């Protein structure tokens, strides 16, 4: 196979950073928090680069949709081995439907054989963009992929299910979303990071792709709050004490 692969990369708040709720409950306090490439998209980038290294792909293009700061995650993907990057600039991070519409326009421009992206982002956990993009393109989809094998004009993809997994034959072009199990992403060493700075990163505006100005969000955020706090518990001396507490105090045994 000699695939052209488009990988979608989202910038997210670093999942190891604690987010806070604004005091008035109007939303999340995210200003100034460290950001990173969505870990699931990182797996997608890694898979695309491995396919190229194994001779199954001709080119790996990485694309993001959002504010100018998304360039940083594109640079990460370039350092991991993608050849070039596209940023469709929007004033705000779009919600999944709007993101899928933007990505569909990028796909129509680039004509890849395969779109790879994470199964969800670790910030909003919507998990909608891959299936929405496939819908807008009328393409087949394979979600939560934990194994990907190139075949004759199609891919063989193993997808995680509620119980066990299934292997599907996926005709191309298609959208695949990556589970964490797909691979372990490489760490880009300094020379690769330096080299990535010279790789092409193209900035696009919605009108360049014939897209209308971004529409307002479809989901209206009313309130953000912290989940009910769990009181710190008790440390017991031994198994017998634990069982007694579970039986007589918590009454769950």
């Amino acid at each position, binding site marked *: 196979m000699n695939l052209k692969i488009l990988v979608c990369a989202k910038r997210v708040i670093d999942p190891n950073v604690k*987010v806070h709720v604004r005091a008035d409950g109007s939303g999340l306090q995210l200003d100034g928090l460290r950001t990173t490439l969505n870990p699931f998209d990182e797996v997608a980038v890694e898979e695309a680069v491995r396919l190229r290294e194994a001779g199954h792909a001709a080119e790996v293009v990485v694309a993001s949709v959002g504010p100018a700061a998304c360039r940083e995650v594109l640079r990460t993907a370039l350092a991991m081995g993608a050849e070039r990057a596209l940023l469709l600039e929007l004033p705000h991070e779009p919600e999944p439907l709007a993101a899928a519409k933007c990505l569909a326009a990028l796909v129509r421009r680039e004509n890849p054989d395969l779109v790879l992206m994470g199964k969800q982002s670790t910030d909003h956990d919507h*998990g*909608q963009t891959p*299936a*929405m993009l496939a819908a807008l393109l009328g393409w*087949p989809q394979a979600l939560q992929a934990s194994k990907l094998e190139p075949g004759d004009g199609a891919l063989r993809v193993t997808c995680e299910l509620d119980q*066990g997994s299934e292997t599907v034959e996926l005709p191309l072009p298609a959208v695949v979303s990556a589970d964490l199990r797909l691979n372990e992403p490489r760490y880009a060493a300094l020379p690769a990071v330096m080299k990535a700075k010279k790789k092409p990163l193209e900035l696009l505006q919605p009108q360049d792709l014939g897209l209308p100005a971004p529409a307002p969000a479809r*989901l209206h955020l009313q309130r953000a709050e912290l989940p009910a706090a769990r009181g710190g*518990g008790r440390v017991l001396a031994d198994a017998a004490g634990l069982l007694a507490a579970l039986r007589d105090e918590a009454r769950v045994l």
Partner: protein
Amino acid sequence: MSVLVLVPCDDGRPADGALAALGAAQALGPLQVLACGPGAAAAAAGLALLPQVQRVLVLEAPALPRAEAMAPWLAQQCAARGCTHLVATALAWPRALLPRTAALLDLMAVTEVVKIVDADTFVRPVHAGAALTTLRVPDALRILTVRASAFEPPQPQVREPAPVEAVAPPPAESRSASALQRQLPQADGSVALIGARVVVSGGRGTGSAAGFDQLRPLAQALGAAVGASRAAVDAGYAPADRQVGQTGKSVAPELYFALGISGAVQHWAGMKDSKVIVAVNKDPEAPIFQFADYGLVADLFEVLPALQSGIAALPPRS
């Protein structure tokens, strides 16, 4: 209000967790149920006795229809029936199908809902459960996936059964993935994770696949489902479909044992709504102790035999 609840079926009964969507939708008014998949017809009689159910539509098929074929069909059904809500439990099939359907209708779906406030307002967690967001959806059709751990399945009623009606499956779609092989988990009689009353989960502290397997007798003694942290799954100690956490399953049992699990936010996201959390960990500084109700700072393998024999010796509750 015209609410359509999607119930994937397996082997003649609703899939594990699928009925949580019916529990969630009770608040929305009378329900139409669309039972799909292998044995949907057999499952229909039971569904027809559940509260609020006005009609059961049966899409009997040897396998759950793939999203590529099903999404346009479902979009058309929602339009034809004037649906105000399309609801399903956030299982793998609806998670693949509902966003695809929503995009065809130029709508957003609201996924992983944990609370229905009213007909157009829903609560869902973000940032691995660090915050809950309340969202209003002004569209005429709201498409929701709900967390199985957040809603109780409804109990059958003594009632006149709702009418059951077969519907023709969607036409095949050639531009679609097609199943080659299904890898089922070992049929070892183990309890399903979704909906389990007790869950026994192991983490990196179990040390090996053999160490992880030492939790199974305890799970068996408790009638518990076996779960795992991402670390245990990544290390190959436990199968992926047993993972509890942000990227695995969300559970809310009455009793949750976290054994050799440090308690990363990622894991917390999937089990924090458990009624009682028990942690056993060698490391007294492990984050799990900050939110466990009961803790033992001990070597897991030294404690296991005492726990097992203690449970076996418990007199039945009177």
